[in-house]
């Protein structure tokens, strides 16, 4: 089960934080800082999995952004790595840069909610997700 999804930039600013478990606000801040500390120290030579408290973090770095998913210890690492890649390759994010994420952050949340729900991977098919998102966009 996914505990939370975090997108941060190298400086530690949160671009997206989706929590699938109850945390207090200050706990959330602490977690964000800790994840940042753990993940930015690692470079390409390190594995994409880090043990973190009694969970583990699977992260991937794309340009200046770190996409981190925090899961239970006995979950399959490679599957979630693929999920991250799947998420980023989304056609909706056509040539997206960090600034776009900042200004349209609620759209990012929509995409996240399309692909992950209640701590599980919901949809992996790119075509389906894209169709849904275009339909939602037409409603605006």
């Amino acid at each position, binding site marked *: 089960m996914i505990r939370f999804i975090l997108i941060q930039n190298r400086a530690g600013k949160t671009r997206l934080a989706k929590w699938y478990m*109850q945390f207090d606000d200050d706990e959330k801040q602490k977690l*964000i800082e800790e994840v940042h500390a753990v993940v930015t120290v690692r470079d390409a030579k*390190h594995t994409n999995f880090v*043990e973190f408290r009694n969970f583990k973090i699977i992260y991937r770095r794309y340009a200046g952004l770190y996409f981190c998913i925090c899961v239970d210890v006995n979950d*399959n690492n490679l599957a979630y790595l693929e999920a991250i890649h799947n998420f980023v390759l989304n056609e909706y994010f056509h040539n997206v840069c960090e600034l776009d994420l900042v200004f349209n952050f*609620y759209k990012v949340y929509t995409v996240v909610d399309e692909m992950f*729900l209640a701590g599980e991977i919901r*949809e992996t*098919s790119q075509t389906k997700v894209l169709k849904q998102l275009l339909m939602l966009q037409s409603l605006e």
Partner: protein
Amino acid sequence: MALKMVKGSIDRMFDKNLQDLVRGIRNHKEDEAKYISQCIDEIKQELKQDNIAVKANAVCKLTYLQMLGYDISWAAFNIIEVMSASKFTFKRIGYLAASQSFHEGTDVIMLTTNQIRKDLSSPSQYDTGVALTGLSCFVTPDLARDLANDIMTLMSHTKPYIRKKAVLIMYKVFLKYPESLRPAFPRLKEKLEDPDPGVQSAAVNVICELARRNPKNYLSLAPLFFKLMTSSTNNWVLIKIIKLFGALTPLEPRLGKKLIEPLTNLIHSTSAMSLLYECVNTVIAVLISLSSGMPNHSASIQLCVQKLRILIEDSDQNLKYLGLLAMSKILKTHPKSVQSHKDLILQCLDDKDESIRLRALDLLYGMVSKKNLMEIVKKLMTHVDKAEGTTYRDELLTKIIDICSQSNYQYITNFEWYISILVELTRLEGTRHGHLIAAQMLDVAIRVKAIRKFAVSQMSALLDSAHLLASSTQRNGICEVLYAAAWICGEFSEHLQEPHHTLEAMLRPRVTTLPGHIQAVYVQNVVKLYASILQQKEQAREAEGAQAVTQLMVDRLPQFVQSADLEVQERASCILQLVKHIQKLQAKDVPVAEEVSALFAGELNPVAPKAQKKVPVPEGLDLDAWINEPLSDSESEDERPRAVFHEEEQRRPKHRPSEADEEELARRREARKQEQANNPFYIKSSPSPQKRYQDTPGVEHIPVVQIDLSVPLKVPGLPMSDQYVKLEEERRHRQKLEKDKRRKKRKEKEKKGKRRHSSLPTESDEDIAPAQQVDIVTEEMPENALPSDEDDKDPNDPYRALDIDLDKPLADSEKLPIQKHRNTETSKSPEKDVPMVEKKSKKPKKKKKKKKKKKKKKKKKKKKK
């Protein structure tokens, strides 16, 4: 009025929308907090407006601020207002804000119940969808209870989009409101066979999560999942199912046997690494549970190990890491198959990634045997030298010690080598594990009697070394080793070559810079040394020598008496007085050595860690009985505020119970004294405890070493352990030759013997005899102690609450609570309940009749289906 409206709309023109807010924050990097508090004030103004678009805009901005870390819980009610907007975009913004900021402590959350219910049964699937998504983040037990039924009906919605969401959310609902699991479960099972693959995988996901925590309830679903596994091609689903099987197999070994074949097929056929890894993991889990070990399973193990080796050899760090992780699982049950890959794992120790190194270390921990321990530790020591100044070095140190001290030092054949390793480790600077090394030294010295002489000589060299004193200011630093060194030298002083020299080393002025607890040990052991020196001198009739030693003590002890640490001060002053007294006696030529050494008679043995707990309660002692007569406790607490006036009355009842229980106290005192007398470690109040001195027969335990040259040169400062490795090889070679000779003799004698298991030329671990006679003193436990372990279970674990038996039919009390406006008869089966529910949940809504008609049409469509 008109002016107000105009003014209002002009104001609205200047409202910031989200883009402006973000841009503004980016432009105000220096005074961000001030700018943001300004924005928050503006937002508060906007929220007071009636226009829903304005409110939505404000909430959108608030969500952004929440992401940056600002608290927006004060706006909870406004968020609910936005959630109730009819336009989809606004509703979405409201739900997003709610999902980010609502939690169980939010008071207004119960106001959302009806709104969510409305949205859940809305004709627009997007409204329903967004409500479900938002709900998943902030569902509380109350919400779960109220909405469980609605969500359950949604599981049978026409659109798979909604069905999928509903199924996934049910998991959250189950967590918060476990009573909903039983009624909802049949529906969930149906979804496993849903025509839409997305819904199917969602159902698989949910059941897998549930089964992971409480596997025995879902065993009946195993055949269904088996079918799914063989028919599905979706990797994500397969991974989940295989993981589920991994959780189920410990309970049902037959399932395990059936699984081996399809899993091995998958391992061979799949190209997806993630699936491969999951299969290997599950195969390992199955084989662990099938520990009966049928012959064909060794083939599967070999296959797994082979595949894992491929993973570890891959250049991708992730695969390496996972391979190592899985290998360590195999190690626990099939160590032999893993040991052949030792070279690969030693290679991984050189990897740049720390987590890989740590995994490799863990593996090594399980892979040591008597044969390769020295080699492995040597390799680890080279790593320790390379890893200067990192936490990794500390980790290595703990690991080395762990590996060596495994299972009561099972794998160490030469303790002299081990002590030299420990001494080498003391040369590390800046480590925080000095106490570990110290503990090991103490342990080995106490338990392995044969090694004491060697240990003592090493320790006295340590006491001399200056650099250890240099790090004396660091907490838990390497100077802790001096603690062990001093104690060993003192306790086993009979093995010391030059006790006088050691005594002087321990009395050096620099010693006062050491931490208090180490100094205390120094002081105590100085006296032990002194005693043995006195013994020696008196036997040799060197009265002057004896007096010189006493004078040395008198000269140097005062520096300890002036110490700031209480323990040191007390011990030093006590001993100083004693020594002065001895000095007076010596002046009168009275032989004192015998009495002084009687101070330290007796052997100290290691005590088991649970010994104190296991001390049996002596008969007749009731620990729960009141010692004094119980004053009515609750009353006395109430009386305390009025105690000023009732003080005298309270005092009188207190006196009476104490007199009456004098007898009881005396009885308990006796019982306590008994216990203390039996426990040799109880530190009695008198300074000279009486113990019997047992002479340790030193010579018989030390085996006769064949060649004198085996004793290595003691060159202080140079590593000696390498020489031991060579020595060890020579020794083993010699042993092997001897054994071969013996075996040949035996074979000649028994040519006719029908031996199926003839002795093979390969050495096993047991063939290697240790270099020293290891007389490991076992830990002391009180009599009649039983080994026992208590499980600690967290009473608040939500997963435990889900441990419900699903096979029993539903009872009446377990139906989900439904909102009813009229009293109707309750039906007995859940299926009948459902269509009635659908009718009733719609009636309380005061919506337009059009909606009712639409719903009736929907129902008709369903009935047709």
